[in-house]
């Protein structure tokens, strides 16, 4: 230590961790936060499991991740109006682990039937997600952090030191700063916090693209085959929501399928038009798909070229990354129009047949008729709007989720298989071509549609690994990411919703999807004579309004291309934006999804931090002050006495 700043650094240790933050909905709050406006400080104490937790004083609990659900359940059960156990918890730290606890049980922060209130059928108790714990929806009045690997070792050592001295001061304490603006403003529902500007609605930008590019100002009127996937996930800790299997494996399959289809010529001669839609915000009330449908209804600029009546068939690619037995299940709603829905199933079957010589040999089966209906999926929004929608959801599972880590921090790259995704991509690509050709395409053409497996591998590296992360070659060639490692939590909607999307406010994942789709669906300039011969350089906008600027990065300019690739805002249709800000709109009659919509918002905060240090008991500090004052007073007294003594002595002399 060379200086006072060095001393200060040695005294305080900042920890790395992922916080659980405060969300609000129309009825109240969920998530975690500091209970008031001040930091939460308490000595660290570690327990091995949920049941052994015994607190005699306010403590910062350190628990292994396997104990989180059990402990929260204990709090819930003990809850009178003020459970004494909950009151003693100043904060909760969860240790990082390599998934060493019983993997067979699995872990999911979502409920047993995720977003059951949106299901277009009555069986809301069906157990799609048996490992679901529902902790994502709990409201906790203390901060919770998931620690990084390095910080976990440090905190364990500090907790051990506290144990060794028998919790006698001075003790190692953790200081949590997770004070939420909504707590300070006293706003505890979506409506009040939006009014007081202490929160923002959840949302982002979905992306749609057409292959081949459409003339949006004068559409041909071809029936549309809409292929859907989602790019957002969730977890108890929003910063670690990889969603690799659910739902991004579907998105990867769809993007790889687009890549394969873009190589095919003659798509414009096919009977139907292919449109791809990658939604965001689906984990929070299906706000992406519902907003998309609302935009279609109001014929907004964002969806120019599309209209609700031209969408003939819908193929949703759900979780497909764990189909280790190479079987994919086709889920449909009983009310779906028979003929067009059957055509989708047949197209998928034809695609599977064309792949019977491949190494993966995928199979396609209809989902069990004992299922109550379609699994949690974006298709639910379409079914609510029109129960006869000809749509299917392609999934890796039949009657219950295969994904044991749905909506948790463990749904990462180790939870998916690249070959399986590539196999699903082939299936989807060939099925889409089949559908576009009205199921008339022959096997030779189908067999020529080849998916690039290394593309899938590259995307997995970009989206789910720390290295290379979003600084991988594939992403860097198309855009400059704002951070290296990204979470797939949707985040908040930062712009005015009717504004032209500003890439600065758009999440990396959305921007990557937009640039990827635009790049792949780029129209060959020679085919459209009304456009200039060369691709112009650009940074964000192109002179010709029918062109878009793709691959503009910090290193090089983009190029203006003809592509029908657009951003669509994604936010709850229960919200509207006025000059004064966001507002909760009145509920329309007959809007069942709107009635079920919690309308999630996220609180603002000024800073979120976590640090540890050694702290004395308050009486020690008071003793030191008392000692200092006494020494000063005593010295005053002593000097005055001495002065008096010497003055007397001098007078006498």
């Amino acid at each position, binding site marked *: 230590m060379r200086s006072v700043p060095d001393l200060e650094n040695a005294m305080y240790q900042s920890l790395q961790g992922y916080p659980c933050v405060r969300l609000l909905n129309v009825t109240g709050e969920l998530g975690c936060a500091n209970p008031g406006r001040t930091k939460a400080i308490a000595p660290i104490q570690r327990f091995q499991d949920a049941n052994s937790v015994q607190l005699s004083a306010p403590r910062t609990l350190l628990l292994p991740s396997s104990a989180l659900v059990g402990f929260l359940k204990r709090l819930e059960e003990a809850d009178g109006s003020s459970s004494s156990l909950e009151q003693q918890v100043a904060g909760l730290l969860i240790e990082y682990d390599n998934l060493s606890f019983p993997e067979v049980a699995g872990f999911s922060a979502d409920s047993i039937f995720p977003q059951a209130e949106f299901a277009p059928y009555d069986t809301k108790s069906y157990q799609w997600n048996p490992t679901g714990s529902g902790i994502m929806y709990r409201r906790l009045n203390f901060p919770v952090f998931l620690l990084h690997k390095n910080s976990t070792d440090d905190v364990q050592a500090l907790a051990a030191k506290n144990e060794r001295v028998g919790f006698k001061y001075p003790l190692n304490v953790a200081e949590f700063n997770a004070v939420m603006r909504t707590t300070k403003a006293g706003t505890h529902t979506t409506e009040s916090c939006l009014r007081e500007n202490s929160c923002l609605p959840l949302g982002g930008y979905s992306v749609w693209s057409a292959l081949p590019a459409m003339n949006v100002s004068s559409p041909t009127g071809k029936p549309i085959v809409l292929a859907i996937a989602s790019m957002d996930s969730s977890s108890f800790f929003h910063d670690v929501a990889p969603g690799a299997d659910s739902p991004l494996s579907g998105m990867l399959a769809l993007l790889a399928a687009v890549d394969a289809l873009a190589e095919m010529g003659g798509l414009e001669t096919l009977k139907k038009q292919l449109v791809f839609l990658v939604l965001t915000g689906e984990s929070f009330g299906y706000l992406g798909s519902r907003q998309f449908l609302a935009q279609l209804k109001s014929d907004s600029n964002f969806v120019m070229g599309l209209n609700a009546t031209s969408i003939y068939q819908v193929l949703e690619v759900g979780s497909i990354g764990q189909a280790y037995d190479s079987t994919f299940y086709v889920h449909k709603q009983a009310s779906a129009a028979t003929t067009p829905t059957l055509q989708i199933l047949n197209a998928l079957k034809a695609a599977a047949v064309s792949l019977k010589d491949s190494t993966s040999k995928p199979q396609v089966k209809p989902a069990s008729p004992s299922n109550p209906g379609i699994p949690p999926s974006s298709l639910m929004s379409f079914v609510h709007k029109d129960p006869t929608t000809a749509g299917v959801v392609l999934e890796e599972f039949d009657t219950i989720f295969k994904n044991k880590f749905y909506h948790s921090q463990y749904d990462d790259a180790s939870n998916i298989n690249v070959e399986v995704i590539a196999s699903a991509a082939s299936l989807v690509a060939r099925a889409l071509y089949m559908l576009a050709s009205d199921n008339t395409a022959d096997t030779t053409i189908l067999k020529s549609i080849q998916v690039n497996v290394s593309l899938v591998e590259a995307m997995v590296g970009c989206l789910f690994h720390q290295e290379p992360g979003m600084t991988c070659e594939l992403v860097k060639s198309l855009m400059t990411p704002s951070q290296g490692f990204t979470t797939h939590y949707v985040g908040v909607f930062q712009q005015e919703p009717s504004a032209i999307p500003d890439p600065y406010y758009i999440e990396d994942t959305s921007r990557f999807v937009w640039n990827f789709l635009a790049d792949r669906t780029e129209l060959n300039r020679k085919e459209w004579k009304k456009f200039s011969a060369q691709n112009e350089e650009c940074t964000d906008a192109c002179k010709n309004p029918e062109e878009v600027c793709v691959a503009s990065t910090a290193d090089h300019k983009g190029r203006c291309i003809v592509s029908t690739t657009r951003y669509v805002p994604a936010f709850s249709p229960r919200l509207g934006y006025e000059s004064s800000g966001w507002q909760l709109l009145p509920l329309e009659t007959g809007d069942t999804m709107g009635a079920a919509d919690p309308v999630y918002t996220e609180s603002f905060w000024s800073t979120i931090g976590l640090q540890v240090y050694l702290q004395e008991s308050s009486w020690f500090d008071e003793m030191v002050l008392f000692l200092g004052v006494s020494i*000063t007073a005593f010295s005053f007294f002593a000097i005055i006495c001495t002065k008096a003594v010497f003055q007397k002595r001098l007078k006498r002399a």
Partner: protein
Amino acid sequence: MTGAGGIGYALIALGPAFSLFVTVIASKPFLILTVLGSAMMWLVSLIACGLLWRAFLPGAVWVFLPLLITVVAIQEAVRIYYWHLYLKIEDFLNKLATKVSKQQLVATDKIQIAIASGLGHGIAHSVFFCLSLLTPAFGPATYYVDSCVHMPLFLVAAFTALGFLLLHTFSMVIAFNALAGDKRSHQLFVPVMHLCAALLTLVNLLPGGCIAGVPLTLMCAVVTMAVAGKIVWDKTGSGSGDLNSLHRVHSASRL
């Protein structure tokens, strides 16, 4: 350790200095200047020592031994230089007093100047060795060095600073008296005690050493105070000189 703790430590280190300043120094402008001048001189000597030893630090533990010896030697040499400066000023002031028909410096004046000089040294020491270290003490955390689990670093620093403050203040009283009177034993007392106190702080480096090191430092201070007290007692005793040379007859002092 919060505001209360921080203020407490600051008062431990500088409370007596503050008391001394208010009761003895503050009413006489010349004494205030003396405190400042002496503090400045002490700082200059410290800078010289720092420049000398900068190249060798941070170093092995045994480096502290030659470091302390040379630094104490330099500071004692500066004290002697300061004494000679003081003689010149004393001479000048006496001549000035004669000119304006006022009384020359008496013994109590000289003792007060000695105290002010010592206080200047002591306050400068406290500020540089303790007060700057105390800034983190106002925050919520505390700090214990590995070799001292009995008390926080800040408490050790505050007590040590208190000890040296008292030591420096009263050493100057002894030194002035000794250098004026030519009494060998008293002349040796100050540098020897200063060196002893400095070397005894090395005890703090031993594991658990602060339990002994801090009281030892304070003891050195008490011994110095006692010796200084005895000297002043003797000096102000009956038969030790003409009344007029001891203290001012009139209370109005121009010093």
